[in-house]
């Protein structure tokens, strides 16, 4: 991917990834729960889409369906003109709320985890090293996961998601479990990696401030439906004291509010 596709370049190309009428029902003992209730959405290539919502709004379910971890009850995901299913999943890398590193693998082998079945991990040493460098983890390639702090482990998880060069990076509240300072530092890095990579980012968070600092578009999800889709046209790094930022923040908060 490299630097040829700057985020702005593909920003307006439509019909790249379309989600049409997505529904997800969970059958509990005595009632059905609608986690997603008809989601229609266009995701532009090279965007940083942030999905916010209260717990139970369906935001994580949406991400898990895109990741192929769950099946929608109804609706379609169309990527570059063809329908995605379990045989043809979206080309994604994913970061979860917890790092989910494999405890018996070194940092390098965790980063190269997507390549283990093909037996290619050994040839990709230099790739792992350059990813570690980008993530500020130089020299940690032989460390084991239990030796890392929470923030470092999450950086490794991010490296793992990026190592297979996915077109789409899914982030499920990736910074939710980190302390304030680590979180801020990683937000800055995410913005930088997004700017450098030309990939499409889809992030779920419950932190509205984080959404506004990172997203090129914030989608507010409420009870399984899209409540609002708010474009954020601000330069990185964003100044949260500027007027536009505050206006947009109020807009997102208003959309989230039940009253």
């Amino acid at each position, binding site marked *: 991917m490299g630097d040829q596709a700057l985020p702005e370049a593909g920003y307006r190309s439509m019909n790249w990834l379309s989600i049409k009428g997505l529904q997800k029902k969970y059958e509990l003992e005595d009632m059905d729960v609608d986690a997603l209730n008809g989601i229609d959405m266009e995701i532009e290539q090279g965007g940083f889409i942030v999905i916010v919502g209260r717990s139970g709004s369906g935001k994580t379910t949406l991400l898990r369906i895109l*990741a*192929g*971890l769950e099946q929608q009850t109804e609706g379609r995901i169309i990527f570059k003109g063809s329908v995605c299913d379990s045989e043809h*999943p979206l080309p*994604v*890398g*994913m970061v*979860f709320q*917890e790092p*989910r590193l*494999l*405890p*018996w693998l*070194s940092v390098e082998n965790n980063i190269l*985890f*997507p390549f*283990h*079945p093909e037996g290619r991990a050994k040839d990709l040493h230099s790739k792992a090293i350059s990813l570690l460098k980008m993530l500020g983890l130089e020299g940690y390639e*032989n460390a*084991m996961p239990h030796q890392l702090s929470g923030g470092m482990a999450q950086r490794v998880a991010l490296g*793992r998601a990026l190592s*297979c060069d996915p077109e789409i990076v*899914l982030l499920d509240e990736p910074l939710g479990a980190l302390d304030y300072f680590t979180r801020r530092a990683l937000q800055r890095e995410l913005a930088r990696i997004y700017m450098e990579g030309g990939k499409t980012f889809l992030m779920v968070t419950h932190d509205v401030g984080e959404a506004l600092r990172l997203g090129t578009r914030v989608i507010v999800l409420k009870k399984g439906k899209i409540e609002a889709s708010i474009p954020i046209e601000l330069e990185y790094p964003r100044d949260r004291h500027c007027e536009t930022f505050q206006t947009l923040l109020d807009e997102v908060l208003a959309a989230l509010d039940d009253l």
Partner: protein
Amino acid sequence: MKFEKKNLMESGLIVPAVLLLLWWAGSNAGWWNAFLLPSPEKVVDSFVLSIQNGELQKHVWASLDRIIKGFGLSAAMALSLALVCSWFPPLLVQLEPTLEFFRHIPPMSVIPMLILWFGIGEAPKIILIILATFFPVFMNALQGIRDCDPKLVEVATVFGYKKWHQFRYVILPSAIPSILTGLRLGLGYSWRSLVAAELVAASSGLGYMILDAEQLSRSDVVLMGILVIGALGAFLDYGFLWAIRRYLKRGIEA
């Protein structure tokens, strides 16, 4: 000086040293009948003699040979069944009540039937070892595979792992510690059950050596046999533990 003292305190050697000293002192002072508990010197003498005429080596090898065959066979069967069962759960559902029944039968209680069916050759002893060691190996392997964190399997799914690759690269490696624990338990059980089998029906092996000595009223040889069994069992366990540690260390580096 202080350092050496600390080493002694942490070595765990004090208890055996005291026991040995008591044994030696009591034997020499005549606190008990020398036939009921022969002196350490006598036991050492019979040990040296037995090595010199090659008897001990013969019996040790006969026992070890059965362990290698029986435990090897048992571990191979238990591990493959655990793999098949975790790969294909309906099989486990069908097998579980039967296995649960057999699990509660003390292997020793089967000895009469084994002798009836297979005589006193090698077969009943090997089968006995299998009966005694199959379940710890099987259960631990199964548990290890079941206990794999589903969140890690999800990671593999996201990165496009096929089912077999998930098993090979995520589920199996995460089960290795508990598989090794099962093997270690099984090895201990195999040793204990084997000696019991040799006590009942055998013409070689350490259990037989003890039984033979009993009939010749050689309590020093009996005692020597017991000590050799204990020492070998501990040695096997230690060796296995060492191999596990080595393997795990290398697994981490690789």
